């Protein structure tokens, strides 16, 4: 089975940019799924085989922290790794994300090289 990624960001522009950065970094996924908030992300995780999630933090409806908290309660999806991509870089919020299972964080703005550097070892 090929690898699938889920991009979670309320900005459609940023989802396109992250997808392009993955390709520029030479990271190939068979399928790129997209969600505009944590609620949509949970629905996709319940239906699709996803290998890794790249998620924003500040989003309407369900933000990235609430998404991590809810995901951690669901046995069937809690093991899927989540990498945060956000303008938020404070130790407090990134620390909270990691305590809820996030495997790392990339600060916006970012380069494809940065995406490769952080994401590559996780695949």
């Amino acid at each position, binding site marked *: 089975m090929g690898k699938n990624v889920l991009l979670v960001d*309320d*900005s*459609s*522009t*940023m989802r*396109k*940019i992250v997808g*392009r950065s993955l390709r520029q970094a030479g990271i190939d996924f068979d399928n790129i799924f997209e969600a505009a908030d944590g609620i949509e992300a949970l629905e996709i995780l319940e239906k699709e085989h996803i290998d890794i999630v790249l998620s924003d933090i*500040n*989003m*309407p409806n369900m933000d990235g922290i609430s998404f991590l908290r809810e995901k951690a309660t669901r046995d069937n999806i809690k093991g899927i790794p989540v990498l945060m991509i*956000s*303008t*938020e*870089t*404070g130790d407090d919020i990134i620390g909270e994300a990691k305590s809820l299972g996030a495997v790392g964080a990339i*600060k*916006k*703005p*970012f*380069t494809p090289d940065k995406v490769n550097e952080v994401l590559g070892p996780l695949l």
Partner: protein
Amino acid sequence: MNETEINIGQAIMDSTREVFSTMLMVELKADEPIEGQGGEVDSNITSMLGLGKDIRGMLSVHCPGEVAKDITGTFLGMEVEEIDEDVKDAIGEIANMVAGNLKVFFQKHGRDIELAIPTSVVGNSFRTSGMSGAQRVAVPFSMNGRTFLVELKYMENT
């Protein structure tokens, strides 16, 4: 806030230039920061984002339509012909990343701020106002010979 202690105009310049050089591969030219009134551009789209906690305020990116389409087209790598949802989203994301860089800047100066989610307004001949008593710093930037403005209105919570 002591302007000699914290150079907010320079912070807006650095924050905006980093976003454009990293995400759009564009090196922006900036004019001198404007403190107080002045420097307004004839905006067709303004993306705004609220700041809270130690500093209350509003970060705004004001763009004439042609600049907004140019930024969006460069951002997405495609031709953009009208101010549509892609343009509103792209300029909002520019505002979001500039504000994120400013958040890091303020953290280095001991101020913790929280960021809201950006909102974009599209139209002709509109102005945004509010925050009576707030200080204002604005920086005009030039991209491909056209000007847009990044503006911060703020006041420190005591």
